[in-house]
Protein backbone atom coordinates (compact mmCIF):
# COMPACT_ATOMS: atom_id res chain seq x y z
CA UNK A 1 0.00 0.00 0.00
CA UNK A 2 2.94 2.34 0.74
CA UNK A 3 4.14 1.84 -2.83
CA UNK A 4 0.71 2.67 -4.23
CA UNK A 5 0.42 5.82 -2.14
CA UNK A 6 3.96 6.89 -3.10
CA UNK A 7 3.00 6.36 -6.73
CA UNK A 8 -0.07 8.58 -6.30
CA UNK A 9 2.04 11.29 -4.65
CA UNK A 10 4.73 11.04 -7.35
CA UNK A 11 2.19 11.17 -10.15
CA UNK A 12 0.51 14.25 -8.64
CA UNK A 13 3.88 16.00 -8.29
CA UNK A 14 4.93 15.11 -11.86
CA UNK A 15 1.63 16.28 -13.32
CA UNK A 16 1.94 19.59 -11.48
CA UNK A 17 5.53 20.07 -12.66
CA UNK A 18 5.06 19.00 -16.28
CA UNK A 19 1.71 20.46 -17.26
CA UNK A 20 1.89 24.06 -18.37
CA UNK A 21 0.73 26.54 -15.80
CA UNK A 22 1.58 24.24 -12.91
CA UNK A 23 4.26 24.74 -10.30
CA UNK A 24 6.23 27.36 -12.24
CA UNK A 25 3.28 29.75 -12.35
CA UNK A 26 3.07 29.54 -8.55
CA UNK A 27 6.70 30.63 -8.27
CA UNK A 28 6.24 33.48 -10.73
CA UNK A 29 3.14 34.56 -8.83
CA UNK A 30 5.11 34.51 -5.56
CA UNK A 31 7.82 36.69 -7.13
CA UNK A 32 5.18 39.08 -8.49
CA UNK A 33 3.42 39.50 -5.16
CA UNK A 34 6.73 40.21 -3.39
CA UNK A 35 7.62 42.69 -6.12
CA UNK A 36 4.40 44.69 -6.08
CA UNK A 37 4.31 45.21 -2.28
CA UNK A 38 7.22 47.74 -2.29
CA UNK A 39 5.32 49.71 -4.93
CA UNK A 40 2.39 49.84 -2.53
CA UNK A 41 4.14 50.61 0.77
CA UNK A 42 7.16 52.48 -0.62
CA UNK A 43 10.78 51.34 -1.10
CA UNK A 44 11.86 52.12 2.49
CA UNK A 45 14.29 49.29 3.28
CA UNK A 46 13.91 49.65 7.07
CA UNK A 47 10.15 49.22 6.80
CA UNK A 48 10.49 46.39 4.27
CA UNK A 49 12.95 44.46 6.40
CA UNK A 50 10.55 44.75 9.34
CA UNK A 51 7.43 43.60 7.45
CA UNK A 52 9.42 41.31 5.11
CA UNK A 53 8.45 38.03 6.82
CA UNK A 54 4.78 39.02 6.60
CA UNK A 55 5.15 39.82 2.89
CA UNK A 56 6.80 36.46 2.20
CA UNK A 57 4.10 34.65 4.17
CA UNK A 58 1.22 36.39 2.41
CA UNK A 59 2.87 35.75 -0.95
CA UNK A 60 3.32 32.07 -0.14
CA UNK A 61 -0.28 31.81 1.14
CA UNK A 62 -1.70 33.28 -2.07
CA UNK A 63 0.63 31.21 -4.24
CA UNK A 64 -0.48 27.94 -2.62
CA UNK A 65 -4.05 28.73 -3.66
CA UNK A 66 -3.04 28.53 -7.33
CA UNK A 67 -3.45 25.16 -8.95
CA UNK A 68 -5.53 23.82 -6.07
CA UNK A 69 -8.71 23.69 -8.14
CA UNK A 70 -7.03 21.18 -10.45
CA UNK A 71 -5.83 18.88 -7.66
CA UNK A 72 -8.84 16.58 -7.87
CA UNK A 73 -10.71 18.12 -10.80
CA UNK A 74 -8.46 16.57 -13.49
CA UNK A 75 -8.63 13.16 -11.81
CA UNK A 76 -12.38 13.43 -11.66
CA UNK A 77 -12.87 14.46 -15.27
CA UNK A 78 -10.64 11.69 -16.68
CA UNK A 79 -12.15 9.08 -14.36
CA UNK A 80 -9.02 8.24 -12.37
CA UNK A 81 -10.65 9.48 -9.17
CA UNK A 82 -13.19 6.66 -9.46
CA UNK A 83 -10.35 4.18 -10.03
CA UNK A 84 -8.51 5.49 -6.96
CA UNK A 85 -11.73 5.16 -4.99
CA UNK A 86 -12.22 1.58 -6.21
CA UNK A 87 -8.58 0.63 -5.62
CA UNK A 88 -9.38 -0.57 -2.10
CA UNK A 89 -6.97 1.81 -0.41
CA UNK A 90 -8.54 4.18 2.13
CA UNK A 91 -9.59 7.39 0.42
CA UNK A 92 -8.24 9.32 3.43
CA UNK A 93 -4.69 8.15 2.70
CA UNK A 94 -5.08 8.82 -1.01
CA UNK A 95 -6.10 12.39 -0.18
CA UNK A 96 -3.00 12.71 2.00
CA UNK A 97 -0.80 11.29 -0.78
CA UNK A 98 -2.28 13.73 -3.29
CA UNK A 99 -1.67 16.59 -0.85
CA UNK A 100 1.93 15.45 -0.30
CA UNK A 101 2.58 15.32 -4.04
CA UNK A 102 0.99 18.71 -4.51
CA UNK A 103 3.11 20.21 -1.74
CA UNK A 104 6.32 18.73 -3.19
CA UNK A 105 5.60 20.33 -6.56
CA UNK A 106 4.13 23.68 -5.42
CA UNK A 107 4.89 24.26 -1.72
CA UNK A 108 8.53 23.21 -1.56
CA UNK A 109 9.64 25.48 -4.46
CA UNK A 110 8.13 28.43 -2.59
CA UNK A 111 10.15 27.52 0.52
CA UNK A 112 13.32 27.25 -1.55
CA UNK A 113 12.65 30.57 -3.29
CA UNK A 114 11.81 32.46 -0.08
CA UNK A 115 15.44 33.23 0.99
CA UNK A 116 16.24 34.73 -2.42
CA UNK A 117 13.06 36.83 -2.45
CA UNK A 118 13.88 37.85 1.12
CA UNK A 119 17.07 39.50 -0.18
CA UNK A 120 14.88 41.86 -2.21
CA UNK A 121 13.19 42.88 1.03
CA UNK A 122 16.48 43.44 2.91
CA UNK A 123 15.66 40.81 5.54
CA UNK A 124 18.66 40.04 7.77
CA UNK A 125 20.36 36.63 7.41
CA UNK A 126 19.15 35.23 10.76
CA UNK A 127 15.60 36.35 10.08
CA UNK A 128 15.88 34.94 6.57
CA UNK A 129 16.65 31.54 8.06
CA UNK A 130 13.74 31.90 10.48
CA UNK A 131 11.27 32.80 7.73
CA UNK A 132 12.40 29.89 5.58
CA UNK A 133 12.09 27.51 8.53
CA UNK A 134 8.59 28.74 9.38
CA UNK A 135 7.54 28.43 5.73
CA UNK A 136 8.92 24.89 5.65
CA UNK A 137 6.86 24.02 8.73
CA UNK A 138 3.77 26.01 7.74
CA UNK A 139 3.23 25.56 4.00
CA UNK A 140 2.16 21.90 4.47
CA UNK A 141 -0.70 23.21 6.63
CA UNK A 142 -1.66 25.69 3.89
CA UNK A 143 -1.63 22.95 1.23
CA UNK A 144 -3.63 20.59 3.47
CA UNK A 145 -6.29 23.22 4.24
CA UNK A 146 -6.41 23.92 0.52
CA UNK A 147 -6.86 20.20 -0.15
CA UNK A 148 -10.18 20.26 1.75
CA UNK A 149 -11.28 23.22 -0.37
CA UNK A 150 -10.17 21.44 -3.53
CA UNK A 151 -12.09 18.29 -2.57
CA UNK A 152 -15.23 20.30 -1.76
CA UNK A 153 -15.22 22.30 -4.98
CA UNK A 154 -14.47 19.15 -7.00
CA UNK A 155 -17.41 17.36 -5.39
CA UNK A 156 -19.58 20.33 -6.29
CA UNK A 157 -18.20 20.76 -9.78
CA UNK A 158 -17.39 24.39 -9.02
CA UNK A 159 -13.94 25.91 -8.94
CA UNK A 160 -12.49 29.35 -9.38
CA UNK A 161 -12.83 31.99 -6.73
CA UNK A 162 -15.07 29.88 -4.48
CA UNK A 163 -12.08 27.80 -3.37
CA UNK A 164 -10.20 30.93 -2.23
CA UNK A 165 -13.22 32.23 -0.31
CA UNK A 166 -13.64 28.89 1.45
CA UNK A 167 -9.97 28.24 2.19
CA UNK A 168 -8.56 31.63 3.24
CA UNK A 169 -10.37 31.97 6.62
CA UNK A 170 -8.93 28.63 7.70
CA UNK A 171 -5.42 29.67 6.69
CA UNK A 172 -5.45 32.65 9.07
CA UNK A 173 -4.22 30.76 12.19
CA UNK A 174 -1.30 29.38 10.16
CA UNK A 175 -0.47 32.89 8.98
CA UNK A 176 -0.69 34.30 12.53
CA UNK A 177 1.73 31.84 14.08
CA UNK A 178 4.04 31.70 11.04
CA UNK A 179 4.48 35.47 10.95
CA UNK A 180 4.76 35.84 14.73
CA UNK A 181 7.49 33.18 14.88
CA UNK A 182 9.40 34.76 11.98
CA UNK A 183 8.98 38.34 13.25
CA UNK A 184 10.09 37.42 16.77
CA UNK A 185 13.63 37.05 15.41
CA UNK A 186 13.55 40.58 13.94
CA UNK A 187 11.61 42.81 16.32
CA UNK A 188 10.31 41.03 19.33
CA UNK A 189 11.68 40.08 22.67
CA UNK A 190 9.14 37.25 22.30
CA UNK A 191 10.77 33.84 21.86
CA UNK A 192 10.81 32.02 18.53
CA UNK A 193 10.06 28.53 19.76
CA UNK A 194 6.46 28.66 21.15
CA UNK A 195 4.79 30.04 18.00
CA UNK A 196 6.98 27.79 15.86
CA UNK A 197 5.88 24.69 17.77
CA UNK A 198 2.23 25.76 17.47
CA UNK A 199 2.85 26.14 13.71
CA UNK A 200 4.20 22.57 13.54
CA UNK A 201 1.17 21.39 15.56
CA UNK A 202 -1.16 23.17 13.11
CA UNK A 203 0.47 21.31 10.22
CA UNK A 204 0.04 17.96 11.98
CA UNK A 205 -3.57 18.64 13.01
CA UNK A 206 -4.49 19.82 9.53
CA UNK A 207 -3.06 16.58 8.11
CA UNK A 208 -5.64 14.66 10.15
CA UNK A 209 -8.52 17.06 9.44
CA UNK A 210 -7.70 17.30 5.72
CA UNK A 211 -7.56 13.52 5.32
CA UNK A 212 -10.96 12.94 6.96
CA UNK A 213 -12.77 16.02 5.61
CA UNK A 214 -11.25 15.75 2.11
CA UNK A 215 -12.20 12.08 1.78
CA UNK A 216 -15.71 12.80 3.08
CA UNK A 217 -16.10 15.60 0.53
CA UNK A 218 -14.88 13.43 -2.35
CA UNK A 219 -17.19 10.57 -1.34
CA UNK A 220 -20.17 12.91 -1.24
CA UNK A 221 -19.37 13.93 -4.81
CA UNK A 222 -18.81 10.40 -6.10
CA UNK A 223 -22.19 8.85 -5.39
Amino acid sequence: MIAALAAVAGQTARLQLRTGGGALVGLIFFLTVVTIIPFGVGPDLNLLSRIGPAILWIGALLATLLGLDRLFQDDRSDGSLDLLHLSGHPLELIVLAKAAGHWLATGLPLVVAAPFLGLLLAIEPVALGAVTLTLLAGTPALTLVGTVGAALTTALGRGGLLIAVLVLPFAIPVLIFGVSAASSVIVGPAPFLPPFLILVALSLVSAVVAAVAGAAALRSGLD
Partner: protein
Amino acid sequence: MPISDLANPTRFLAFAGRLLPWLWAVTAIGLAVGLYLGLFVAPADFKQGDMVRIMFIHVPFAWLSMACYGVMAVAALGTLVWRHPLADVAQKAAAPIGAAFTFLALVTGALWGKPTWGTYWVWDARLTSVLILFIIYLGLIALWQSVEDPGKAARAAAILTLVGTVNIPIIKFSVDWWNTLHQPASVFRLDGPTIDPSMLWPLMIMAAAMTLLFASLLLMAMRNEILRRRVRAMQIVAATG
Protein backbone atom coordinates in the same frame (compact mmCIF):
# COMPACT_ATOMS: atom_id res chain seq x y z
CA MET B 1 -46.93 13.50 19.33
CA PRO B 2 -43.34 12.23 19.52
CA ILE B 3 -40.63 14.66 18.42
CA SER B 4 -39.51 12.35 15.60
CA ASP B 5 -42.84 13.04 13.84
CA LEU B 6 -41.49 16.51 13.10
CA ALA B 7 -38.92 14.94 10.79
CA ASN B 8 -41.71 14.74 8.23
CA PRO B 9 -41.58 18.08 6.36
CA THR B 10 -45.36 18.34 6.06
CA ARG B 11 -45.84 17.81 9.80
CA PHE B 12 -42.98 20.23 10.41
CA LEU B 13 -44.72 22.88 8.30
CA ALA B 14 -47.98 22.41 10.21
CA PHE B 15 -46.16 22.50 13.54
CA ALA B 16 -44.16 25.61 12.60
CA GLY B 17 -47.35 27.31 11.38
CA ARG B 18 -49.07 26.70 14.70
CA LEU B 19 -46.05 27.61 16.83
CA LEU B 20 -44.86 30.74 15.03
CA PRO B 21 -47.61 33.24 16.09
CA TRP B 22 -47.06 32.33 19.76
CA LEU B 23 -43.29 32.43 19.34
CA TRP B 24 -43.45 35.88 17.77
CA ALA B 25 -45.76 37.13 20.54
CA VAL B 26 -43.40 35.93 23.29
CA THR B 27 -40.41 37.32 21.36
CA ALA B 28 -42.06 40.75 21.06
CA ILE B 29 -42.96 40.83 24.76
CA GLY B 30 -39.46 39.69 25.73
CA LEU B 31 -37.78 42.29 23.53
CA ALA B 32 -40.07 45.04 24.82
CA VAL B 33 -39.47 44.13 28.48
CA GLY B 34 -35.74 43.60 27.94
CA LEU B 35 -35.25 46.87 26.08
CA TYR B 36 -37.31 48.80 28.64
CA LEU B 37 -35.31 47.35 31.53
CA GLY B 38 -32.03 47.84 29.70
CA LEU B 39 -32.62 51.37 28.45
CA PHE B 40 -34.57 52.91 31.34
CA VAL B 41 -34.39 50.80 34.50
CA ALA B 42 -30.81 49.49 34.59
CA PRO B 43 -28.39 51.99 36.16
CA ALA B 44 -25.84 53.87 34.08
CA ASP B 45 -22.25 52.71 34.46
CA PHE B 46 -20.15 54.92 36.74
CA LYS B 47 -17.39 55.15 34.12
CA GLN B 48 -19.18 54.74 30.80
CA GLY B 49 -22.46 56.46 31.65
CA ASP B 50 -25.35 55.57 29.36
CA MET B 51 -22.88 54.12 26.85
CA VAL B 52 -23.02 50.83 28.73
CA ARG B 53 -26.56 50.23 27.44
CA ILE B 54 -25.13 49.08 24.10
CA MET B 55 -24.19 45.95 26.05
CA PHE B 56 -27.84 44.86 26.19
CA ILE B 57 -27.91 44.32 22.44
CA HIS B 58 -24.22 43.74 21.70
CA VAL B 59 -23.75 40.79 24.07
CA PRO B 60 -26.88 38.86 22.98
CA PHE B 61 -25.91 39.33 19.31
CA ALA B 62 -22.42 38.03 20.05
CA TRP B 63 -23.72 35.01 21.98
CA LEU B 64 -26.18 34.15 19.24
CA SER B 65 -23.58 34.52 16.50
CA MET B 66 -21.83 31.55 18.15
CA ALA B 67 -25.03 29.71 19.15
CA CYS B 68 -26.23 29.87 15.54
CA TYR B 69 -23.01 28.24 14.43
CA GLY B 70 -23.66 25.53 17.02
CA VAL B 71 -27.14 24.96 15.55
CA MET B 72 -25.57 24.75 12.08
CA ALA B 73 -22.95 22.26 13.29
CA VAL B 74 -25.65 20.01 14.80
CA ALA B 75 -27.65 20.27 11.59
CA ALA B 76 -24.47 19.42 9.66
CA LEU B 77 -24.15 16.24 11.71
CA GLY B 78 -27.78 15.51 10.86
CA THR B 79 -26.99 15.91 7.19
CA LEU B 80 -23.87 13.73 7.21
CA VAL B 81 -24.99 11.02 9.66
CA TRP B 82 -28.72 10.66 9.00
CA ARG B 83 -28.88 12.32 5.57
CA HIS B 84 -32.03 14.06 6.67
CA PRO B 85 -33.52 16.68 4.32
CA LEU B 86 -34.79 18.77 7.24
CA ALA B 87 -31.21 19.05 8.57
CA ASP B 88 -30.13 20.32 5.13
CA VAL B 89 -32.90 22.91 5.30
CA ALA B 90 -31.90 23.97 8.83
CA GLN B 91 -28.27 24.38 7.76
CA LYS B 92 -29.14 26.50 4.78
CA ALA B 93 -31.66 28.63 6.67
CA ALA B 94 -29.33 29.29 9.61
CA ALA B 95 -26.35 30.62 7.62
CA PRO B 96 -27.74 34.04 6.60
CA ILE B 97 -29.31 34.56 10.04
CA GLY B 98 -25.99 33.75 11.70
CA ALA B 99 -24.16 36.09 9.31
CA ALA B 100 -26.63 38.89 10.16
CA PHE B 101 -26.25 38.37 13.93
CA THR B 102 -22.45 38.28 13.63
CA PHE B 103 -22.49 41.44 11.52
CA LEU B 104 -24.68 43.20 14.10
CA ALA B 105 -22.39 42.05 16.92
CA LEU B 106 -19.41 43.51 15.03
CA VAL B 107 -21.21 46.79 14.25
CA THR B 108 -22.58 47.34 17.76
CA GLY B 109 -19.15 46.44 19.12
CA ALA B 110 -17.50 49.00 16.85
CA LEU B 111 -19.99 51.70 17.88
CA TRP B 112 -19.34 50.82 21.52
CA GLY B 113 -15.58 50.75 20.98
CA LYS B 114 -15.28 54.24 19.51
CA PRO B 115 -16.29 56.18 22.68
CA THR B 116 -14.83 53.71 25.20
CA TRP B 117 -11.64 52.41 23.56
CA GLY B 118 -11.16 55.41 21.25
CA THR B 119 -11.27 53.33 18.08
CA TYR B 120 -13.85 51.49 15.99
CA TRP B 121 -11.60 48.51 15.43
CA VAL B 122 -8.51 46.91 16.89
CA TRP B 123 -6.89 43.65 15.79
CA ASP B 124 -7.71 42.13 19.13
CA ALA B 125 -7.95 38.34 19.41
CA ARG B 126 -11.69 38.20 20.01
CA LEU B 127 -12.58 40.83 17.41
CA THR B 128 -10.42 39.08 14.83
CA SER B 129 -11.84 35.64 15.54
CA VAL B 130 -15.41 36.96 15.30
CA LEU B 131 -14.50 38.60 11.99
CA ILE B 132 -13.23 35.22 10.78
CA LEU B 133 -16.54 33.67 11.91
CA PHE B 134 -18.34 36.28 9.81
CA ILE B 135 -16.19 35.42 6.77
CA ILE B 136 -16.86 31.70 7.29
CA TYR B 137 -20.62 32.44 7.32
CA LEU B 138 -20.24 34.39 4.07
CA GLY B 139 -18.22 31.55 2.52
CA LEU B 140 -20.97 29.07 3.46
CA ILE B 141 -23.62 31.34 1.95
CA ALA B 142 -21.52 31.60 -1.23
CA LEU B 143 -21.25 27.82 -1.31
CA TRP B 144 -25.03 27.41 -0.98
CA GLN B 145 -25.60 30.00 -3.70
CA SER B 146 -23.17 28.52 -6.18
CA VAL B 147 -24.46 24.94 -6.23
CA GLU B 148 -27.72 23.98 -7.87
CA ASP B 149 -28.23 20.49 -6.46
CA PRO B 150 -29.40 21.08 -2.85
CA GLY B 151 -28.37 17.62 -1.60
CA LYS B 152 -24.81 18.03 -2.85
CA ALA B 153 -24.55 21.56 -1.49
CA ALA B 154 -25.83 20.36 1.90
CA ARG B 155 -23.13 17.69 2.26
CA ALA B 156 -20.36 20.05 1.16
CA ALA B 157 -21.60 22.81 3.47
CA ALA B 158 -21.85 20.30 6.33
CA ILE B 159 -18.20 19.26 5.93
CA LEU B 160 -17.08 22.89 5.80
CA THR B 161 -19.26 23.78 8.81
CA LEU B 162 -17.78 20.98 10.90
CA VAL B 163 -14.22 21.98 9.93
CA GLY B 164 -15.12 25.55 10.90
CA THR B 165 -16.26 24.59 14.40
CA VAL B 166 -12.60 24.87 15.53
CA ASN B 167 -13.17 28.64 15.46
CA ILE B 168 -15.91 28.56 18.13
CA PRO B 169 -13.72 27.60 21.12
CA ILE B 170 -11.08 30.03 19.80
CA ILE B 171 -13.66 32.85 19.98
CA LYS B 172 -14.91 31.79 23.40
CA PHE B 173 -11.50 31.49 25.02
CA SER B 174 -9.55 34.08 22.99
CA VAL B 175 -9.99 36.64 25.78
CA ASP B 176 -8.54 34.21 28.32
CA TRP B 177 -5.69 32.87 26.19
CA TRP B 178 -4.49 36.20 24.85
CA ASN B 179 -4.73 39.08 27.29
CA THR B 180 -6.07 41.69 24.90
CA LEU B 181 -8.28 44.77 24.85
CA HIS B 182 -11.66 43.03 24.80
CA GLN B 183 -12.71 42.29 28.38
CA PRO B 184 -12.82 38.67 29.59
CA ALA B 185 -16.07 36.82 30.24
CA SER B 186 -18.11 38.41 33.02
CA VAL B 187 -21.34 36.38 32.98
CA PHE B 188 -20.56 32.69 32.39
CA ARG B 189 -17.69 32.14 34.82
CA LEU B 190 -16.90 29.30 37.19
CA ASP B 191 -16.85 31.67 40.17
CA GLY B 192 -20.17 33.30 39.27
CA PRO B 193 -20.92 36.46 37.30
CA THR B 194 -18.88 39.57 38.06
CA ILE B 195 -21.59 41.81 36.65
CA ASP B 196 -24.01 43.51 39.07
CA PRO B 197 -27.49 41.89 39.31
CA SER B 198 -29.13 45.22 38.35
CA MET B 199 -27.48 44.88 34.92
CA LEU B 200 -27.40 41.09 34.78
CA TRP B 201 -31.18 40.64 34.83
CA PRO B 202 -31.97 42.94 31.88
CA LEU B 203 -29.09 41.30 30.00
CA MET B 204 -30.41 37.79 30.59
CA ILE B 205 -33.95 38.83 29.55
CA MET B 206 -32.55 40.39 26.38
CA ALA B 207 -30.49 37.26 25.69
CA ALA B 208 -33.58 35.05 26.10
CA ALA B 209 -35.67 37.35 23.90
CA MET B 210 -32.97 37.42 21.19
CA THR B 211 -32.75 33.62 21.32
CA LEU B 212 -36.51 33.46 20.75
CA LEU B 213 -36.10 35.95 17.89
CA PHE B 214 -33.46 33.68 16.41
CA ALA B 215 -35.74 30.64 16.78
CA SER B 216 -38.63 32.48 15.11
CA LEU B 217 -36.47 33.66 12.21
CA LEU B 218 -34.97 30.19 11.79
CA LEU B 219 -38.39 28.50 11.72
CA MET B 220 -39.65 31.02 9.15
CA ALA B 221 -36.56 30.63 7.00
CA MET B 222 -36.84 26.84 7.18
CA ARG B 223 -40.50 27.01 6.19
CA ASN B 224 -39.62 29.23 3.23
CA GLU B 225 -36.84 26.88 2.19
CA ILE B 226 -39.11 23.81 2.31
CA LEU B 227 -41.72 25.63 0.22
CA ARG B 228 -39.00 26.82 -2.19
CA ARG B 229 -37.87 23.22 -2.67
CA ARG B 230 -41.45 22.09 -3.30
CA VAL B 231 -41.87 24.82 -5.91
CA ARG B 232 -38.60 23.74 -7.53
CA ALA B 233 -39.70 20.08 -7.56
CA MET B 234 -43.07 21.06 -9.09
CA GLN B 235 -41.33 23.15 -11.75
CA ILE B 236 -39.10 20.21 -12.66
CA VAL B 237 -42.12 17.89 -12.86
CA ALA B 238 -44.00 20.45 -14.94
CA ALA B 239 -41.03 20.93 -17.29
CA THR B 240 -40.38 17.21 -17.79
CA GLY B 241 -43.99 16.03 -17.70
